[in-house]
């Protein structure tokens, strides 16, 4: 067996644990064969050798009772288990665990859509339900509700929400739209949060907070429990939908568009998860880098201008949509158009103008909650494309946006990578996603990408920026940047970890939260 064992676990103990797991879920749902199954639990986009994140086994329970059984085995043997839902969190580690040898707790078989309530606009789902699954279900049943999906259709609703993912409709803040969850704690206790704490609750998916502390957030981006069910609010299908796109001819237009859009967002004239994407992000939907440039390093400005001309794109490209009855959309469009016309050289496009353009088509789908996989075209920008996402939060402020853009672009160019990024506008912030694209078959590119990412974390922290989400490799480094008052926040996380999971079995090291028995041992 060439796969690693969990730290501190002997082969005999591991074999016993596997046998006990097989007794819990059935032998066919405990995976130990590296070639047949475990390869699919590795991170294809790791900048390090993927053996750094190779699991020793995976176990796929079907029910809450089986999850409890798995955790009982883990407690007995102090077996570290790494929880995933659909395992498609690529760019942030995918299905792979933080350390080699962990056992992946794969919840893909828990894939029931438990409830959809059209009147109140919500669904209750298990972790194995993907955005595509829920979309298909709504379509098949003729239910007039929209989902808000992550860009890749195969992403899991529970997984994306619990990793603080974002989408593009007015329900784009996924955790904000989450209402109630069922959690299995490390000791096997099943907890219903919020109103679900009331037996036979009639409102567990309607009101988030219940009474007392609201704890749902504690189980997101953490390792305090295993989420086995989640309520998610869904948008009623609006009577009208009008997506639009604005191309901005100059790099410095990022400042103006950001400042112009903020009041429209705050006043909900633009209600959706609008975004501003750079030229190369949009270009990669339909062309590859080598079609324009076969030299070394980032695409030169002269070539960028040619690409923009050829594809009718801007240096930045703003996407948003209006929703609602036609009179309301008509009225809001007057406000939006008057605002956008303040940007010299900006061009406005609608569906009729760009239909058939892959970049437009997938954005227009996402802003109305139609899942697709088009964004993966980005990976073709470089041959054998892999990527990890550097994701700092920026203020929804023009100068702040430009500062972050320059910070990242300049470093990326220093390391011979293109800047490929977007700013997704939230309520008052922006998720700035820098897609660090590299050739995953090139050891040199992976090494440079890894170094660049680490430098960017430090650069951002020096300017007072933190990241909202990250890849396995950088969880500890980013956790260390949240170090106000001698890491008070992370020391609190550790206190909670030790109280809720004293054996340290649940996803050790997730977001830099280590159990006591492993603390300080990470490298």
């Amino acid at each position, binding site marked *: 067996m060439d796969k690693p064992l969990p730290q501190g676990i002997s082969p005999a103990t591991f074999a016993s644990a596997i046998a006990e797991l097989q007794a819990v879920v059935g032998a066919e749902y405990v995976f130990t064969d590296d070639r047949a199954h475990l390869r699919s639990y590795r991170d294809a986009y790791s900048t390090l050798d993927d053996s750094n994140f190779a699991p020793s086994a995976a176990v796929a329970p079907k029910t809450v009772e089986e999850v409890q059984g798995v955790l009982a085995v883990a407690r007995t043997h102090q077996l570290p288990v790494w929880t995933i839902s659909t395992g498609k969190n690529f760019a942030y580690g995918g299905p792979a665990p933080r350390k080699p040898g962990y056992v992946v707790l794969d919840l893909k078989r828990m894939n029931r859509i438990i409830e959809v309530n059209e009147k109140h606009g919500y669904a209750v789902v298990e972790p194995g339900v993907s955005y595509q699954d829920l979309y298909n279900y709504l379509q098949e049943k003729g239910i007039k509700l929209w989902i808000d999906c992550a860009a890749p259709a195969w992403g899991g609703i529970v997984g994306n929400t619990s990793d603080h993912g974002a989408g593009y409709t007015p329900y784009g803040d996924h955790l904000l739209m989450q209402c109630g969850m069922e959690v299995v704690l490390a000791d096997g206790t099943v907890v219903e949060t919020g109103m679900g704490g009331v037996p036979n609750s009639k409102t567990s998916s309607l009101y988030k907070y219940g009474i007392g502390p609201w704890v749902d957030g504690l189980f997101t981006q953490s390792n305090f429990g295993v989420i086995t069910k989640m309520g998610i609010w869904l948008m009623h299908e609006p009577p009208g939908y009008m997506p639009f796109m604005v191309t901005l001819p100059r790099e410095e237009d990022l400042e103006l568009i950001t400042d112009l859009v903020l009041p429209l967002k705050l006043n909900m004239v633009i209600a959706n998860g609008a975004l501003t994407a750079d030229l190369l992000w949009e270009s990669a939907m339909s062309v590859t880098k*080598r079609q324009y440039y076969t030299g070394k390093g980032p695409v030169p400005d002269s070539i960028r201008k040619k690409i923009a001309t050829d594809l009718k794109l801007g240096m930045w490209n703003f996407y948003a949509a209006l929703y609602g009855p036609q009179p309301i959309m008509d009225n809001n469009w007057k406000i939006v158009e008057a605002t956008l016309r303040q940007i010299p050289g900006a061009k406005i496009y609608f569906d009729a103008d760009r239909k058939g353009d892959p970049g437009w088509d997938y954005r227009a789908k996402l802003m109305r909650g139609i899942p697709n*996989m*088009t964004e*993966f075209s980005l*990976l073709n920008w470089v041959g054998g494309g892999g990527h990890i996402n550097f994701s700092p939060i920026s203020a929804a402020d023009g100068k702040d946006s430009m500062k972050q853009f320059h910070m990242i672009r300049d470093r990326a160019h220093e390391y011979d990578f293109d800047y490929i990024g977007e700013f997704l506008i939230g309520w008052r912030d922006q998720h700035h996603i820098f897609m660090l694209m590299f050739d995953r078959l090139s050891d040199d590119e992976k090494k440079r990408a890894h170094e660049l990412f680490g430098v960017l974390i430090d650069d951002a922290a020096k300017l007072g920026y933190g990241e909202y989400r990250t890849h396995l490799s950088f969880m500890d480094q980013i956790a260390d940047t949240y170090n106000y008052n001698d890491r008070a926040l992370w020391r609190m996380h550790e206190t909670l970890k030790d109280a809720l999971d004293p054996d340290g079995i649940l996803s050790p090291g997730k977001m830099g939260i280590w159990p006591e028995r492993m603390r300080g041992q990470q490298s």
Partner: protein
Amino acid sequence: MLTRRAFLKTTVAASAIAGSTGLAALQSKRLESHDIPTLVFADENNLQATLFANTWNGSAPLPSATARDVAGQMGEIDNFCRTHPDGIVFGLTRDSDFFVLEHTAAQRGFSLHYRATHDFRGIALVHEIDAPHPVALPLSTSLQQARAAWPQMLASALPLIAQAEGALTRTQTAVAATYSGADSGYLVSWMLKATNAHAQTPARTSVS
């Protein structure tokens, strides 16, 4: 995009083309008379991938192709792998489409049997091949000799690749590209098989 047919129908073509290439030595190992369910993907937007698909598909029309959104093919590959655990899936596609399809098939226990990248680097076309040891070098030689006809040669060699066993071995070959700039790009040819089917006798299931 997808075409399905029995391997049997292609072995004749395979021997005809492979006979003049580095694969000639492998003729005796080609699949004999077993129909194996197959599922084929090709990027319709790419000339080489279309040639590949047409060679495989003979004169039958292609229903469609992998478009810019591979979501439409995820259900198909999942269904195929679920219902044909003895089947073989292969394609000549963009790298991103391969990534998505490979991960979807992996959920059904299918794993990589063969992969090659076909990388147009300016004036050169570089084939980098990860294939079972017995066919790796002959395939590399054949691709080099095929020059511009490499997609057709590759399609014809699929039965031999499918039958080969052994650890994946990497080989690389470069030939002068004789293609226009519009064809410059990066394609991946690939083959997936159910891991536990490697040692099995080819099944008799036929898919038309």
